[in-house]
């Protein structure tokens, strides 16, 4: 997977976030502050501009620019979380022209650990980790398998009681709603198939 692949992936994520913006915000209205779709759309629109302004020359540069821009532009908790995900991917793949499936899977494993550490979150807390953690091992098999695992993981957050993030203030009232962060993470993983 070369620089063009990673640019196509980020472009696909940007497009999907834009299309699903209102859906993500609706999910966040139920158990959060109704800004997840708008925040991610603003962030990835800024990423689109940053990548166009200074076209990166390596996969690592695509990922690092994406992460840094998200941290700067999102404004909500998803900025540092997704920013750390992409920046860790960028660091982990290293300055190489092409990334193997194996290396990308390993980079995702490091990114998962970094996001869990940043948010002090575990699987089952009703967060993006519930979509990301089951997807990461499947990346060694195929993007299709990873996308399925992420989507299943996101759906499985519905009966969970939130233990991290804004929804945790709701306690039992967070039960019965799919987590917006897990939903957007499933979208990010699914976009790998379009790259």
């Amino acid at each position: 997977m070369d620089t063009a692949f990673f640019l196509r992936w980020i472009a696909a994520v940007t497009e999907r976030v834009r299309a699903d913006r209102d859906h993500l915000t609706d999910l966040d209205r139920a158990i959060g502050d109704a800004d997840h779709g708008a925040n991610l759309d603003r962030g990835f629109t800024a990423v689109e501009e940053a990548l166009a302004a200074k076209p990166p020359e390596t996969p690592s540069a695509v990922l690092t620019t994406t992460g840094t821009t998200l941290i700067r532009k999102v404004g909500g908790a998803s900025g540092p979380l997704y920013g750390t995900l992409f920046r860790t991917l960028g660091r982990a793949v290293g300055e190489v022209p092409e990334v193997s499936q194996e290396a990308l899977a390993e980079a995702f494993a490091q990114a998962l650990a970094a996001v869990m550490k940043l948010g002090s979150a575990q699987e089952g807390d009703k967060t993006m980790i519930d979509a990301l953690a089951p997807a990461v091992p499947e990346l060694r098999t195929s993007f299709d398998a990873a996308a399925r695992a992420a989507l299943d993981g996101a759906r499985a957050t519905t009966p969970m009681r939130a233990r991290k993030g804004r929804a945790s203030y709701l306690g039992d009232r967070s039960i019965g709603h799919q987590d917006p962060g897990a939903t957007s993470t499933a979208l990010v993983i699914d976009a790998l198939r379009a790259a």
Partner: protein
Amino acid sequence: MVGIVLVSHSAGLAEEAAALAVGIAGEDAPIRPAGGTDDGDLGTSLTRLEEAVAEADQGDGVVLIMDLGSAVLTARTFVEDRADVVMADAPFVEGAINALVTAGTGAPLDAVVAAAEEARTIGKLC
């Protein structure tokens, strides 16, 4: 002097908490607010945090006191690259006052962090 930066979801909350701390503890050490997004909405701005740290930094280190959510996550992301900036796990208002009193005595970074975190153990009704 150790500097203090108050990182909040709300620009108004950060500014008023800093003003309250100065009113009680004096202004011997620098304390700066970093609240709200770049547009002044509820949320956290890395740019505002960077600017506040630059203003509060006198070379002896800076303590960050956060309220919640993205303020904590943004602070955590920021300190990854800065060994001289440390987060205090402290109540926002009481931690700010404790930290400013201690920083004003010329105490070192670890003592200011400890003072801020001590605010957690002091009850209001006993």
